[in-house]
């Protein structure tokens, strides 16, 4: 009888608490449709799983307000405006710099914290002090790649393939070029535009330069045409790609041409070390309960961490005040994220020294898989 009474009382208290509990909103805007929808959705799944793991903060329910930016800048702005209207506490998103930057232009003046999950363009966090990101910048990636090419691959002359109408590619190839030339190597940049399929002209230029290493900074769509053509025309040099090459469909069309194609990308559980690796593996287990493994990429971890750092910052701030959340986030130090430790102290909103993964495509039986080579980072 007494137990029943206690249980009842407990239930009443709990129920009352639940009723009294307010909700806070966190905005999520990602490329859920349009040309970047694959990565956008993968990221959203990561956010969702992290949300399931930590649905409350400071005793308040967190409600995700998901908005699709349709992979367009004006869609991103529409989302940002919606968040301002809804009075969200903070915003997660977006994958592409093309969409993060316009939205940051809305959120910074409105004083709302934004944590980008995939924007690697340095300009994003330069917009203001309310803008943060989870990944490394292209500067970091370029430097890591240059170090790899020069030291591990022993290259002294590198041909860089650059998509001239894409800022990610232009930025990354520039940083690589600077870092590689600073080490004493020679580079040449070969430009192409989006949707190029016939690379003969670029290969003609390549022939006279005759490099000993090739760095590809573009996207899968073009790599899928470029790499087989390189091989067909007798270029046997090692090729390194950036994180935009991270897609197992990438090598699918080129026969065996992609064998040995390496690329740097976001750290997956295997490349992380110590506690971070365990956290990531744990998260992956949670992830496969709701989604299939093929959706688990570095961007998934990035999305999860964006949610986690925000929850941590709101907890630290003890309130949902925008400025307090920002201050708490800016003071975040050694946060145990699933994609590695995250520290915002003393940075412009980009976490310090992140770990990247070095991967290679391997042909196994009937399909291509992504093989983990190692985790790399700047020494």
């Amino acid at each position, binding site marked *: 009888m007494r137990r029943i009474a206690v249980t009842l009382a407990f239930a009443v208290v709990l129920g009352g608490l639940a009723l009294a509990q307010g909700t806070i909103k966190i905005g999520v805007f990602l490329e859920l449709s349009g040309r970047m929808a694959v990565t956008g959705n993968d990221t959203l799944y990561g956010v969702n799983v992290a949300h399931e793991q930590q649905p409350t903060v400071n005793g308040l329910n967190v409600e995700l307000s998901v908005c699709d930016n*349709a992979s367009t*800048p004006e869609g991103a*702005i529409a989302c940002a405006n919606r968040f301002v209207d809804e009075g969200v506490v903070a915003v997660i998103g977006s994958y592409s710099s*093309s969409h993060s930057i316009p939205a940051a232009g809305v959120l910074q003046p409105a004083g709302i914290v934004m944590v980008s999950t995939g924007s690697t363009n340095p300009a994003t966090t330069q917009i203001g002090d309310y803008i943060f990101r989870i990944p490394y910048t292209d500067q970091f990636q370029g430097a890591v790649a240059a170090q790899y090419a020069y030291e591990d691959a022993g290259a002294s002359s590198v041909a860089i393939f650059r998509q001239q109408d894409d800022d990610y590619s*232009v930025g990354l190839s520039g940083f690589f070029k600077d870092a590689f030339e600073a080490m004493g190597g020679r580079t040449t940049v070969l430009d192409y535009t989006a949707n190029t399929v016939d690379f003969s002209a670029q290969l003609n230029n390549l022939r006279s330069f005759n490099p000993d290493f090739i760095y590809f900074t573009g996207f899968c769509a073009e790599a899928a045409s470029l790499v087989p053509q390189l091989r067909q025309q007798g270029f046997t040099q090692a090729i390194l790609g950036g994180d935009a090459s991270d897609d197992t469909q990438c090598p699918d069309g080129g026969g065996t041409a992609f064998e040995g194609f390496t690329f740097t990308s976001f750290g997956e559980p295997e490349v992380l070390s110590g506690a971070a690796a365990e956290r990531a593996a744990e998260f992956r287990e949670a992830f496969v309960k709701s989604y299939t493994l093929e959706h688990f990429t570095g961007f998934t971890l990035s999305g999860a961490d964006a949610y986690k750092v925000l929850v941590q910052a709101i907890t630290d701030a003890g309130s949902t005040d925008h400025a307090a959340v920002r201050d708490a986030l800016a003071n975040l130090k050694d946060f145990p994220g699933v994609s590695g430790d995250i520290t915002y102290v003393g940075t412009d909103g980009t976490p310090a020294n992140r770990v990247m993964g070095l991967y290679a495509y391997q042909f196994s039986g009937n399909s291509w898989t992504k093989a983990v080579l190692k985790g790399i980072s700047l020494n």
Partner: protein
Amino acid sequence: MSARPGAGSGDRSDAGAGSGVGAEGAGAVRGTFDPGAAVRAYRPHYLSHRVRDSLLTLAALAALILVLFLVDGGASVKLKQVFALFAIWGIATVSLNLVNGVTGILSLGHHGFMLIGGYVTGLLILPTATRDNLARSARSELSDFAMGLSVENWFNALGLDSLTTPETLWVRFLVAVLIGGIVAALFGVVVGFPSLRLRGDYLAIVTFAFGEAVRLLASTPMLSSFTNGALGFAGVPSDIGKSVWWTFGFLAITVFVMARLKFSSYGRVLQGIREDEIASEAMGVNTAYHKVLAFAISAFFAGVAGGLWVSWVGTARLDLFLFFLTFYFLVAISVGGTGSITGVLLGTALVVWVRQYGDPLEQTYPLSTWVVAAGVVLVAVALVALLLRRVRRLTPRLAPVVYVPAALGLVAVLVGLLGKGMPALQVTWQGFGMRAITLSLLLMAIMILRPVGIMGRREFTWAWVFRQRLDEPTEDERAQDAWLSNPALGGRAGTADGGGDEVDP
């Protein structure tokens, strides 16, 4: 006073009215016609309703300002920016309409002009802090010369320090957007030149090639010292582009200029070129000059729209200026009414609405929902077709175009509703690109069913609201017409045919 051209009043009441009827039976004693009296008796129609029209226009403007006031002060930031976006795209569509609708040249390179205006404006108003940031950044491709191009620097050099404060951003923006427009207009002249030799679809393709080539060239080393290549520049001040008042102010100026132009002698000539270019030339019209002029004016306002668009987004980037922009403008113009400024604004509102509030269309739904939706659309198509056949009195009323979609649609609805449990129909499917699909289907439907668009070539006028027709004969005129056709029947006015076409004896 004799003819007062459709010109005097400042409002748009002279829009469709143009000028009016008045020669009511001027000396219409049958058989005698005094030309002098007819000319003297001519009087623009709107003069009789001038006060009413002005008052109504003022009231409408006041209502618009009230709405803007509510939107500006209201809670929803999104609504506010949708309004601003409507105004910006409205400037672009109304200016494209000058070439596409009024002059009848299909221009597909409007996004190219917007790109030019946008980049120029963006570069000129980039704040010094952002500029320094860019200069420090390792990746900037901007040359020092381009870095120095800043309205703020110019004002400083001129000693106008009071105009370099954040509060006076609008002054700098006005200067920048003016320069952006002028540069775009210069390119408009350049693009206008092929129009001297080419006609119709060839010209459309050349303008299309221009729009694409501008974007491709903007990222090459040739221009990247000004455009910063593909990187573009972030941090363009958004205060003007996101302000409802400023954007609607620019829209008002654009509409004012375009409406006045359309109903001036120049506008008539441009419409003449649309109707028949060879005849225009044979009537002394310097078609080359006027086509280039139309391109230049249109490009100027496109440049202004580009500047505002860059300001609205806050960055100047190449992927803001893809061909889809011109496509949406084309949808707005064609759906609203080719050549009609009010119609074009209507179309723009529709396009902006679908673009900004159409996200439910692109969500993930089970396949059964999609099948039902497709079925409903097909049934709607059948109903519209049936209605049209009724209105146009076509037989057989139940043509294949009616029953085929109807049958398919009904089957789809039934399958979707009854087969809900079927595993094949429970697969979820995301409606990628449904907004664009909707708009392109709408465009197709409009082109097939009503190629001139909802408003046609008409403008919204008060005379139209009050059903005042200028082109319908008065009783006297009807009688006279009948007499002209056949004097023997002259007495009985009612027998003459209303259209007034002569009936051969």
